[in-house]
């Protein structure tokens, strides 16, 4: 559980508390990611994410090989855990779906 999973940053935002957040795509699964520890990253970058926190930027090739290695080792199961959404995010998700 100490391995970080690479994902592609598809959105960067600031939440209501002023925390730098984003959304990352992990092989098709999109999750929220806290970007407070990686102030340098931009949309489109690949980041290594552990328990919802981006810890470092990696290049695309490294992201791809790490993702594949984790997949082969069946180490991606934590991505299956659903995220908790607050009321605002739920209404946002509903309007996105609509």
């Amino acid at each position, binding site marked *: *559980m*100490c*391995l*970080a999973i690479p994902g592609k940053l598809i959105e960067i935002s600031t939440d209501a*508390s002023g*925390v730098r957040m984003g959304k990352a795509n992990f092989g098709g699964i999109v*999750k*929220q990611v*806290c970007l*407070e*520890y*990686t*102030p340098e990253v931009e949309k489109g970058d690949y980041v*290594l994410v*552990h*328990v*919802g*926190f981006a*810890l*470092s930027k*990696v*290049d695309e090739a*490294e992201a791809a*090989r*790490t993702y*594949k*290695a984790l997949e082969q*080792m069946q*180490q991606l*199961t*934590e*991505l299956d*855990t*659903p*995220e*908790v*959404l*607050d*009321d605002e995010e739920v209404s946002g998700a509903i309007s996105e779906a609509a």
Partner: protein
Amino acid sequence: MKYLDEYRDEALAAGILAEIKRIVTKPWVLMEVCGGQTHSIVKYGIDRLLPNEIELVHGPGCPVCVTSLEMIDKALAIAQRPDVIFCSFGDMLRVPGSDCDLLILKSRGSDVRVVYSPIDCLKIARANPEKKVVFFAIGFETTAPGNAMAVWQAHQQGIQNFSVLVSHVLVPPAMASILQSPLNRVQGFLGPGHVCTVMGYREYEPIAQRYQVPIVITGFEPIDILEGTLMTIRQLEAGEAKVENQYPRVVNREGNRVAQDLVNKVFEVGDRKWRGVGSIPKSGYKLRYEMRDHDAERIFDVREIDTKEPEICISGLVLRGVKKPHDCPAFGTLCNPEHPLGATMVSAEGACAAYYAYGRHLQEPALVPAS
């Protein structure tokens, strides 16, 4: 070489193996420290591809495994309270405490929730102001920034009903403890790549120097492990003992300074009990005094609980690299992932569970390098 065709880059793997065979002249014992590396080594049979001179032993690098029985029992005591929503990473739910586990409590009606990120707990806390939301903050240095941020945000935003049960462990003191033991056999380390993403590797330099052991920060892919092994053997054969970085595409010497700063604002280093090993001085994080309003141990006043591990279990010796899973009479019989007796079987990243998952309990012990 039967596993070699599964490797992503066969030619590269074969080249590294040939070079290892060419340079090795003496028997050496190496330890990998990260549970992900252990998993990879056993899955791809890397230990069996290496020349007989090289023995890989598996370190204490699974945070789920080394969380002490006392701490599991404290978690169970807190999770049973009707005023508590107890949140945890999924890996902890099946870890047995003295009487039961978190999953059993959940089935009995306790509000136990699996979260992807500690930040999710803050949302649960905001949505449930009448409840006390407790997060089981376990992990090595890789997980500490996430857990620290959850506490920091709660502190900054005045989220009073959020607390953490902290059982954080640190890699370098565990390595030092292994090296100090009179039973120690480890002569070189494959250091933990993703831990060093956060921490860098400066703190490993005094260990390499003091104990005269090479430490090679290594990734977790098979090729990484082969290359890390080659770099470690090169040093050993040359009589060197320094820190090298096999994983520069991800790790640098300084690590993530922003993350380290916040971790240090929230946590301080303290003694920590490791399951199967016992207490190791200054080997864990505990909350700083300023964060005491979010300290579940203080809030719920869970006292030291007297616990007992099964006598037959040798997980403490396995975690220190003194024994292998096959050396245990209970391995694969009395002890298996459904009914784990000790630390190294409780999570998939533990050495015993990894051996079991890849069918090594069905094979003759003689296939494993003698310990």
